[in-house]
């Protein structure tokens, strides 16, 4: 039990650190990295919480987290490549 509690505290502090990275990032990529790390650690955290509370049905939510985190990540990348490929065209058209 103690090991589980210690691990959950450790994961929670990792989440806090990754969150800090996502909030205070130099580049947009650092931000995405932080967000992604919070997502994967959340899945682990829920799995551990399920064991701590004796509620194994929490695991379903951990699966959803892992899945949604991946899809959100891909959506962000897709959007980023989409806008980065033509950085200034839109603004130029509007100014004409």
């Amino acid at each position, binding site marked *: 039990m103690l090991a589980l509690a210690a691990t959950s505290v450790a994961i929670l502090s990792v989440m806090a650190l990754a969150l800090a990275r996502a909030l205070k990032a130099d580049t947009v990529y650092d931000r995405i990295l932080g967000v992604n790390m919070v997502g994967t650690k959340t899945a682990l955290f829920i799995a551990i919480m399920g064991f*701590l509370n004796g509620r194994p049905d929490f695991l*379903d939510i951990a699966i959803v987290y892992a899945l949604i985190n991946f899809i959100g990540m891909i*959506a962000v990348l897709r*959007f980023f490549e*989409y806008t980065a490929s033509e950085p200034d065209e839109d603004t130029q058209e509007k100014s004409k």
Partner: protein
Amino acid sequence: MVELIDLVLLGMLAITALRVIFLKDLFAVVMLFGLYSFLSALIFVNLDAVDVAFTEAAVGAGISTVLMLGTLALTGRKEKANNHTALLPLLVVIITGAALIYGTLDMPPFGHPDNPAHQHVAPRYIEESPKEIGLPNMVTSVLASYRAFDTLGETAVVFAAAIGVLSLLGMPKPGGVAIDSGLKSHLVLRVVAKLVIPMTILFALYVQFHGDYGPGGGFQAGVIAAAAVILYALVFGLPLATHVVRPNFLKVLAALGVLIYAGTGVTSFFLGGNFLDYNVLASDPVVGQHIGIIVIEFGIGITVFAAMLGIFYGFAAQAERTNIQ
């Protein structure tokens, strides 16, 4: 322990919200909103509200992020500079906040069994639902049977939202010009996506049909299944995705789900019960309840899947159209 975790999560939530307010880059704001949803879902998990957490994670963090990114692709990612003074709004917010905090002072203690919320209908649900409906997951019993009429309304709202968005944005035309879209250069991503998508659909089916026994149900399953197709569209491009799930098919599906739900209600009419009274669907009332719940959950799943995917199609098609011009 649980209180401590709650406090830490609430603190992280508040910091994220503050950061969102002061950021000007809307792209970063959308990402932080995703984080915000994740954190609030974690709080729901901690409060043992498993079904709510499920919905928040799937809808709030997943589909909303994707749809907001789709909106950004249409509008651009910089916030408009605001020159108005914020003094009056700040005053209003402070007064409202103070009034709300003053109101919480009179609230009964958190989680106390004598609270009004636990005295009204909750005892009846808790005591009678194992006999009347016999499902292990009481949330599904309340949602799909006791409150079936409300849930029908919610499904109709999702359907109406899809109609509204599609009448504004329009569906993509199937078999249109195959413009270069999708993450073409990411080979690893394409291979892994092919592995992940079937697993996702399988998991969606599990959530759909396991909703009677564990967390989950039609809403969550519909969203997860839609997320699988959205992943396909993101990685392989919209034209291929519309080839797999045709927009016209989606329109039929969205209406069909609501029709299945309402049709179950009408059927129970004809068998001599009230609207959405599943007791009359089989000779044994409990079996009737099970049949009714499975059928309407299926209807909800179909409508939510079609509505979510349809809305995504609408945004993506609009974004690709502006891309061509």
